[in-house]
């Protein structure tokens, strides 16, 4: 009994494929949420027809509840590519998922026509169809999220790489210009990079320039101070330069103790101190 009903779903999808498609496309085009600016009618039609076709093929196979199995592969692939292309076009995740959910309306209409007075069969099929469409819609949403996450992770990695060049200003003097917001992870990477370079080059003085850091909180300040302590343990020293008036006020306000760490407002001033410490001096050439 249950089988007979379920097989009707597949039958209906294939038999009335074009009607369903027509009905569905019109539904989508006339909906207030339709993004005419992001997708053309032709493209919408193409995506919709592909979906109906694949769905019809699939449903006959008997498995309507588990869309993670291999036989649902083509449908998942198609939905993944729709999700990807819509994400690129600028659709929001719910707009993209609505694409699938909106199929319920034409599908239920058709089911009602087919089942006529048979309320039980209708209820059964509507339920099965509803659960299935829900799963497919949610799948689309998830794929969208995953794509987003990947972009974020890639950007984070790029950001990490961006932030840690160590420059040798002069034999014995290193400079590390910090840019952007410093979080725990980045500061850790910065610290390790700098200390590694100090060891490799045998540079006694490092200038940590924070002109590019918009704000400093207690955690960041502590990380910086730890870096200075580690460098000193190794036999080198650090100066901190590029401190903005705002950061200076924040540091005092937070009660961060800078101890005997030399701080300068500009990189130039820090460079002067560094040269002097190394016993060097910059003079103008005699004319």
């Amino acid at each position, binding site marked *: 009994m249950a089988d007979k009903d379920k097989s009707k779903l597949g039958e209906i999808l294939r038999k009335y494929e074009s009607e369903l498609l027509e009905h569905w496309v019109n539904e989508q085009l006339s909906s207030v949420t339709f993004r005419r600016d992001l997708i053309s009618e032709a493209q919408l039609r193409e995506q919709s027809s592909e979906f109906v076709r694949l769905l019809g093929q699939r449903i006959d196979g008997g498995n309507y509840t588990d869309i993670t199995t291999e036989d649902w592969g083509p449908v998942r692939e198609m939905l993944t590519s729709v999700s990807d292309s819509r994400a690129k076009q600028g659709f929001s995740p719910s707009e993209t998922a609505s694409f699938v959910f909106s199929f319920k309306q034409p599908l239920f209409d058709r089911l009602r026509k087919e089942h006529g007075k048979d309320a039980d069969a209708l209820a059964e099929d509507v339920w099965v169809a509803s659960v299935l469409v829900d799963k497919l819609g949610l799948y689309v949403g998830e794929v969208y999220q995953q794509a987003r996450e990947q972009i974020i992770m890639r950007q984070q990695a790029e950001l990490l790489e961006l932030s840690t060049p160590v420059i040798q200003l002069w034999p014995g003097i290193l400079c590390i210009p910090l840019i952007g917001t410093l979080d725990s992870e980045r500061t850790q990477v910065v610290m390790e990079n700098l*200390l*590694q370079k100090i*060891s490799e080059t*045998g540079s006694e003085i490092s200038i940590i320039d924070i002109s590019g850091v918009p704000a400093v909180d207690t955690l960041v300040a502590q990380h910086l101070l*730890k870096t200075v*302590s*580690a460098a000193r*343990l190794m*036999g080198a020293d650090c100066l901190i330069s590029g401190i903005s008036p705002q950061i200076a006020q924040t540091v005092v306000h937070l009660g961060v103790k800078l101890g005997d760490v030399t701080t300068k407002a500009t990189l130039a001033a820090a460079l002067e101190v560094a040269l002097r410490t190394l016993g060097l001096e910059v003079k103008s050439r005699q004319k």
Partner: protein
Amino acid sequence: MERIPILKMGPFLLVTIQVDMHDRLAETLQKDLSERVVKDGARGVLIDISSLEVVDSFIGRMLARIASISRILDAETVVVGMQPAVAITLVELGMSLEGVKTALNIEKGMEILQGSLDVETGGDQDAHQEN
């Protein structure tokens, strides 16, 4: 019994720590070093830890102790070649190695020791060596 070799370089002694230190070895080193400082009239001790990838509180204390003992015997101690990972760990552990001077490498360590000597003798090494 294993001993850590102590090399003489002019007025200084050089010790390279390459193996895991355990109690006995550390004690022996302290003893050997103090004896050599007196015997050779050494004015400085260089401890090279560039081979150590891990330094725990035990080694930290040992280094501080050697520095204190040497100072009493009129020799200065400089620890050289600390690896970045070690420095980071020590900072995280809150160990500051008080009273221990450090340098990035042996050359710089020697410069420090030589510098202190020069200050002492007023920069006139020849007068000192004439004895």
